[in-house]
């Protein structure tokens, strides 16, 4: 609203005569209904028994004066003025015999009820806002005691996580496992250990093939056993712990522990 000043009806209506004198600060109103309520209060009667006609006239007079001093009124106020002007004319004219629209008295009554309702809610608002209020009139404990929290972990994993983890690992190691199967071999160390044991028993020449078969029942292992033990036997020969003999190519290989004296002779 543009009006900043107290709008003094009395002064504005200087040339008028017998106008009720009152001071209205238009800036302080919360819309036309509020203004109407204020005007109604000035009738100093119960809102239920208010003269709506008088009220309409007062409102219209107020608007007229406001326009004379070129106050810019919000559209709301003007709409209300138009409606009240219509109501006023309806109230002054005799009622048409068959009313299609609500009668003037009904309209007036509805307005009075609206004002009453606003008045009531205002009273209620006042009561509400003047109640003792939290943080202003009463306070909670300033230092509430913290609840001690014992953390208990709850682990989370979905079935998908579980299955994916399983497949991932099995997949990763599937190929490695295959190699493991093929690697059913006699390592050099294993062969050497077996040969060393043999050295304890075989004082005389033994056929290495016979001996290997007696150790390695599984035929699949024969090749790896032969290869590893041959390499191991060469190692033992180099160390002077074993003697090897082969009569001709592809004939059996004979082995025996090297006698102690020959070790010393060498």
């Amino acid at each position: 609203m543009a009006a900043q000043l107290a709008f003094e009806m009395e002064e504005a209506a200087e040339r008028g005569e017998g106008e009720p004198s009152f001071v209205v600060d238009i800036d302080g109103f919360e819309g036309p209904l509020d203004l109407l309520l204020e005007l109604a209060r000035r009738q100093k009667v119960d809102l239920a028994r208010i003269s709506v006609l008088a009220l309409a006239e007062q409102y219209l007079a107020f608007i007229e004066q406001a326009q004379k001093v070129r106050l810019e009124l919000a559209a709301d106020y003007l709409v209300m003025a138009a409606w009240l002007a219509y109501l006023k004319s309806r109230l002054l004219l005799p009622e048409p015999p068959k009313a299609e629209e609500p009668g003037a008295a009904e309209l007036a009554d509805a307005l009075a009820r609206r004002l009453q309702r606003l008045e009531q809610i205002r009273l209620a608002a006042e009561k509400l806002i003047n109640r003792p209020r939290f943080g202003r009139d009463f306070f909670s404990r300033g230092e509430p005691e913290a609840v001690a929290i014992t953390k208990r972990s709850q682990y989370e994993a979905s079935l998908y996580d579980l299955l994916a983890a399983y497949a991932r690992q099995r997949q990763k190691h599937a190929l490695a496992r295959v190699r493991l199967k093929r690697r059913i071999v006699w390592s050099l160390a294993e062969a050497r250990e077996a040969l060393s044991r043999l050295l304890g028993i075989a004082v005389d020449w033994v056929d290495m093939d016979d001996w290997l078969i007696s150790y390695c029942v599984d035929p699949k292992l024969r090749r790896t056993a032969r290869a590893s033990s041959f390499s191991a036997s060469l190692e033992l020969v180099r160390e002077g712990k074993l003697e090897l003999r082969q009569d001709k190519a592809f004939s059996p290989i004979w082995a025996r522990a090297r006698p102690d004296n020959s070790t010393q002779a060498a």
Partner: protein
Amino acid sequence: MGEVAQLFDRLGVTPKFEPEALRIAEALVFAAAEPLDEAAIASRLPDGADVAAVMTELQRVYAGRGVNLVRVARKWTFRTAVDLSWLLAREDREQKKLSRAAIETLAIIAYHQPVTRADIEDIRGVAVSKGALDVLMEAGWIRMRGRRRSPGRPITYGTNQEFLIHFGLDSIGDLPGLDELKGAGLFDGKLPTGFGVPLPNDDSGLAEDEEPLEAEGDLKEVWGEPGEEEGA
């Protein structure tokens, strides 16, 4: 414990529960940062203790003291006595003063809930002033409840638990001046059908003529509106 029993003896009161129940309830409500409902209190009381009787007795013990046991929003909490507010008023606790428009809007929402923006405007005879709803939302006292099943499906507003706590009300039915309003028969008038419920209702359930707000996007969208809707 013995001392509490002694206290009761001296007061000539025979409680219908173990004194221990009283101590536990007292400790719980005293320690809590927020009001506690009876179910929460009962869960810590010895089996079979009558929580309502315990709380009534505790309330009696604290009546007239510097700290009182009060019931707000159907929950129990300790509060400094209202008559000592002068003692504790501090500047830093001063609250933003609400505009007259905001106060009236709050009252309309409280007493007539669930209400739409149009309902509020109808009662006040003026467009809902800029930011009035925002201020109330920000204060944490009102909430969007749903939408009215009517053309345009307007948002309905109501109060929440914070509202009850702030104004020290046990339930919305304890609003001051409610009887006068009811007596004046002003709950009907020109309000839409279904609005004629004689009592304000802050039930979390929706009214018959309400439907839920659809989604978060919906809420946001609506919440962006007030500026635009500003008429006057």
